C-alpha cells in the first residue's frame, strides 16, 4: 500500500562556507562512528576545519568520507588504500569532465 503525503516547502540549506557539518553529522551521514572520522582526520585522509574546539566539514569532505567508508566496508580495505583509491576516483572524474568539455569543443 502506498500512502501519499504532501509536504510543502522543505527547509533547504546549502552547505557552504557559512553552513558546515559537525563531526557527529559527518559520522552519521557515513553510517560510521565519530572515532572513525577522527582517525582519518589524524591520518590526513580527510580534511576539516578545527575551530573553537570543534570540527566543521564542507560538502567535498562529506562526499569523500562517504566514498572512503563504502570502500573500506566493501573490501575490508586498509584506510590508506581506500584513500588512494578515492584520490584516483576523484582524479578520473575530473579528467573525464575535462575530456567531455574538449569533445564538445570539437
Amino acid at each position: 500500500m502506498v500512502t501519499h503525503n504532501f509536504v510543502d516547502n522543505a527547509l533547504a540549506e546549502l552547505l557552504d562556507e557559512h553552513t558546515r557539518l559537525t563531526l557527529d553529522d559527518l559520522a552519521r551521514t557515513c553510517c560510521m562512528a565519530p572515532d572513525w572520522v577522527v582517525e582519518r582526520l589524524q591520518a590526513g585522509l580527510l580534511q576539516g576545519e578545527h575551530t573553537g574546539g570543534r570540527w566543521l566539514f564542507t560538502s567535498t569532505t562529506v562526499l569523500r568520507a562517504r566514498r572512503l567508508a563504502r570502500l573500506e566496508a566493501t573490501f575490508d580495505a586498509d584506510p590508506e588504500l581506500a584513500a588512494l583509491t578515492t584520490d584516483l576516483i576523484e582524479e578520473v572524474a575530473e579528467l573525464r569532465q575535462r575530456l567531455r568539455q574538449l569533445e564538445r569543443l570539437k
Partner: protein
Amino acid sequence: MEFKDYYQILGVARDASADDIKKAYRKLARKYHPDVSKEADAAARMAEVNEANAVLSDPEKRAAYDALGREAPHRPGQDFRPPPNWDAGFEFTGSPGAEGMDGAEFSEFFEQLFGRAARAQGAQHGGAQAHGAGPAQQRGRDHHAGIELDLRNAYHGAQRMLTLHGARLDEAGHLVNQERQLHVTIPKGVRAGQLIRLTGQGGPGLGGAPAGDLFLEVQFKPDARWRAEDRDVYQSVTLAPWEAELGGAIEVQTPGGSTVEVTVPPRWKSGRKLRLKERGIPAATPGDLYLELHIALPAATTPEQQQAYRALAQAFPQFKPRNAPGTQGG
C-alpha cells in the same frame, strides 16, 4: 512484498562458506561499484548486492533467512509475507545494514525482516522477537540523492518538486510504503558537488527520536554553451573570422540571462579567453565568467561568397597555416 533470493543475487550455493560469500561479494562489488562501473543499472545492482551480503555475511541473519526459506519456500519475485514469529529464537545484533553502507538503499523485504520495522515491532511487543542493540529511541538515517540543475539555476535559484519514495511505520509498527512530494527552494549560488541539506526529510526516527536529514548532491546538466568549475563559469563564444582578427564589440548572452556587450581585442590568438569579473556563480565572493573564443567559418554557397574566399587567399600569399598549427602561420 517481493521475495529476494540473496544466494542467487550473489551467485553462490546455499551451502557456500563465509569465504565463498566474501569472494563473490567483492567480485560483484568491483563490477557494480557506482564510482567505477559503466553498467547502466550499477547503483541499483550494488544496493542489491550490498543487501544480500549484509544478510549472508552475518551468521545470525543468515541462519534466520535460511530458516525462513525452509519454512516458507518462495521463488524470487514472488509476493511474500513473512509468517508470524518467523524470527523467534534468532537475535540480530548491530545495525540493520552494515558500517559504511547506506541502509536507506535496502529493499522493503530486508527492512521488513531485519531492519527498522522488525526492531520497532520487537520493541513494541516487549522485545520478544527481534532485538536491536541500540536504545529504543533512535534518530532516523540520513538519506542521500542527486539533483540535476541547469547552470542558470545557480544564478537565480530554483523551485523543485521532488517525489520521494520511502517507508514509515504505522501505529501498529507495520511498514507502510510512502510516497511524498516535497517542494524545495534551491538557493542561488549552488555549485556542482555541493550538498543541500533538507532537515528532517530523511528516514523516520524510532521511539519519538527525530527523523534523519535528506542530502541532495547538486550536478549541473551538461550544456554545450557553458560549464562551471567551482564558482567560475566558462562559456563558449563563436566569432566570425573578421570579428576575431579585426576585433570590435559583440553581444553575448550570459548564463545569468543578461546580455552584455564585450570588446574583442584585435589580432586573433588561439585559445584566447576574456574574463568578465564577478559574472560567474553568485556568492559573497562571486566567481568570474570566462568567454572562450572560437572561430566559425561561414560556408561559401554562392559564387560571390566563393569569390570572396579566393580574394582572401590572394590577399594573404604568405599565409602558411600548416607550418605553425594554431597560429597565423608563416
